[in-house]
């Protein structure tokens, strides 16, 4: 038995832990001998696990153009993520992947003006794409990022947004938080409303990710503004165990989110039964 | 009987006493009967069935159904009324929202026992004066009625309805049952023999959870075996230990609450005699803490939530019977 099996993981070492928000940390993962454990495309996911604690699917938040390491922005919300939040640098984890499709950065999205809309931890999968297109700037049109969170403290990657994205030419970043707070002079309000206020040009291609309720209202708002369903991409999550469309958990209609997703164009999503 | 039940149900639906009826629905074959909720006279006419195969205890459905709008009519066999009483006692059902019509009990038939005789292709089963006349695709077969009786009916403990709003037919009495015979037989074996017996039975377990899910005493909102934090939420018995553990814990969780309705053994696809575990607890409780029949009333304290200062010590286990 010397064939590889995708269910048998690799070892990854956590080489850096960044505290993003009170409940989100970003973990840097490298192979024990240095470098990345495997290559991926923006939007793909990986199965991270602590043996004996659990295994779960996380989107890879670093860009494939980063050749040294992978990053995962993880919100504390369950058994495994609590454990991950409590660990220190140097901890080994197991990692397998990459799983799923990716945002079509090399095909449909090429040459397009891009609008990223994210809410809360929903920035994690989009950050991979944003940094990818920033690194391959010549292949894409304008970039606009609309990002909102509960409060200023809950904005993931705030430092990177301020220091890198906002200083980039041709990248427009619009931030919003749910409620007014001291030390915040930016926009206050929910993402879907902010999108409508900003009234982005309808020739942009939209990539949206966030809590289901935010996605729902954002999509409705975009439709009002004149966007069509084929212009909008989103990324999904369901419970997963295998990552390769066999264990049956993330099945919606004839699609498996782990294999056929997690990235779906909105019109494709509409063809699936409403069970996510 | 079926006719009388349908008429009763139609009458109670028509006069507005109830808005729904829980009963049994006819299937594809002679024996595959599904518990169902009927809402109209037409549905009752078409599909309601009561015969030798309507053995399912429908009282557990009342946990859900009694909380819905409108009163629900339920037909309960004597054994099923014990389950309902126990559920009432544990505040799992809204008894005021239930209209119980007591109906005569079994003995009901076990299709598996007929099939175990090698009879296949069954198209109809008729009881002709306690001989079963079984029509099959390969000709007619016969077998004695009592050889096909469900285990739970063969050791019936009571023909008495312990709760009802109305009865169809006469009420019966509690019976001298032989239900502890097999438990006693096992108790008289050596420890090694008992171990071998249970190993051969429990090793068949596929952890389908049918015993748990059908059990009227298992009504926890979130079962310990489904709770990832319990550490025992396994979906399959990965080791012989887990087979033992699952059934010990399950029986323990219903000890003193199990009315001995026998549904666990009836639904077990592997024919594991699970009721023996429950009966062992019942027998122990009866002999150590005084006769107790779960579901016989709605007020008494359950044996495991009760005590007396002069209860026997646990060492009694070491002192009696065969090693």
């Amino acid at each position, binding site marked *: 038995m010397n064939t590889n099996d995708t269910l048998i993981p690799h070892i990854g070492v956590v080489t850096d832990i960044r505290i993003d928000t009170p409940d989100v940390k970003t973990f840097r993962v490298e192979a024990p001998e240095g470098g990345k454990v495997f290559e991926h495309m923006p939007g793909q996911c990986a199965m991270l696990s602590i043996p004996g604690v659990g295994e779960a699917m996380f989107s890879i938040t670093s860009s494939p153009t980063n050749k040294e390491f992978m990053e995962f922005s993880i919100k504390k919300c369950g058994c495994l993520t609590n454990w991950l939040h409590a660990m220190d640098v140097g901890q080994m984890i197991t990692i397998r992947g990459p799983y799923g499709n990716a945002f079509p950065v090399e095909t449909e999205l090429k040459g397009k003006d891009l609008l990223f809309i994210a809410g809360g931890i929903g920035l994690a999968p989009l950050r991979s794409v944003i940094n990818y297109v920033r690194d391959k700037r010549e292949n894409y049109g304008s970039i606009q990022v609309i990002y909102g969170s509960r409060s200023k403290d809950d904005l993931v990657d705030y430092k990177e947004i301020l220091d890198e994205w906002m200083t980039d030419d041709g990248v427009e970043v619009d931030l919003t938080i749910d409620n007014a707070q001291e030390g915040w002079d930016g926009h206050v309000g929910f993402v879907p409303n902010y999108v409508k206020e900003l009234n982005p040009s309808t020739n942009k291609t939209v990539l949206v990710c966030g809590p289901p309720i935010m996605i729902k209202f954002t999509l409705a708002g975009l439709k009002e503004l004149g966007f069509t369903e084929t212009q909008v991409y989103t990324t999904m999550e369901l419970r997963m165990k295998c990552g390769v469309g066999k264990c049956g958990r993330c099945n919606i209609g004839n699609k498996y989110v782990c294999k056929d997703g997690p990235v779906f164009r909105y019109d494709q999503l509409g063809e699936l039964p409403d069970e996510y | 009987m079926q006719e009388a039940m349908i008429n009763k149900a139609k009458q109670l639906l028509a006069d507005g006493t109830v808005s729904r009826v829980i009963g049994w629905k006819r299937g594809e074959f002679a024996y595959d009967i599904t518990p169902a909720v009927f809402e109209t006279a037409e549905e009752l006419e078409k599909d309601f069935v009561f015969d030798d195969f309507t053995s399912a205890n429908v009282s557990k459905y009342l946990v859900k159904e009694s909380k819905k709008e409108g009163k629900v009519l339920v037909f309960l066999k004597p054994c099923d009324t014990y389950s309902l009483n126990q559920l009432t006692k544990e505040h799992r059902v809204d008894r005021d929202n239930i209209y119980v019509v007591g109906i005569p009990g079994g003995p009901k038939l076990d299709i598996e026992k007929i099939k175990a005789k090698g009879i296949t292709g069954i198209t109809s089963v008729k009881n002709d004066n306690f001989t079963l006349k079984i029509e099959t695709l390969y000709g007619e077969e016969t077998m004695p009625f009592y050889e096909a009786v469900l285990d739970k009916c063969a050791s019936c403990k009571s023909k008495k309805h312990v709760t009802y709003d109305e009865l169809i037919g006469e009420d019966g009495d509690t019976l001298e049952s032989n239900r502890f015979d097999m438990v006693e037989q096992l108790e008289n074996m050596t420890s090694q023999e008992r171990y071998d017996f249970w190993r051969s039975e429990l090793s068949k377990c596929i952890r389908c959870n049918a015993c748990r899910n059908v059990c009227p005493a298992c009504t926890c909102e979130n079962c310990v075996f489904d709770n990832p934090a319990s550490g025992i939420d396994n979906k399959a018995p990965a080791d012989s230990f887990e087979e033992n553990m699952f059934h010990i814990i399950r*029986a*323990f969780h219903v000890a003193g609450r199990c009315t001995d309705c026998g549904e666990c053994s009836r639904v077990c696809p592997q024919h594991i005699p699970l009721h023996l575990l429950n009966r062992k607890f019942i027998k122990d409780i009866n002999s150590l803490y005084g006769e107790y029949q779960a579901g016989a009333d709605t007020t008494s304290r359950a044996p*495991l939530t009760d*005590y007396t200062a002069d209860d026997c*010590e646990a060492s009694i*286990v*070491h002192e009696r019977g065969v090693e």
Partner: protein
Amino acid sequence: MQVNDNKEFQPLIVAFCCNWCSYAGADLSGTNRLNYPTNVKIIRVPCSCRVNPMFILRAFQKGADGVILCGCHPGDCHYTSGNYFTRRRMTLLFSMLDFLGIERDRTRVEWVSAAEGAKFAATMNEFTEAVKKLGPNRRLEDLRCRKQ
């Protein structure tokens, strides 16, 4: 690897001790320098009543050869009645284990007060001997946990 057959079997005993009486009793037996086997692993519980059947089974699963539960004497429970419930529960559980063919001498309940250091040590010695006679737990073990 050479297997040392001469090495005498030392059973692993798990002792659940209630915080108020038996744990203090164990403590006392220690301060009195009384001997009991080192293979007795004490798990302190707030009351003997805290021990649910799963604890006992889990101990066997993870390698215990015998499980003993110690609590306050009946009538002396810190919480008035905890040990009375324990008594019924454990009687039924042990009876069930016996019914399944698990050797009955692998389980025991003993009431040990805070003043009974000597009784604690004697109970542990005696229980360990009884379990030793039975040999390793094979009927209620999880094969996955057996050390190779």
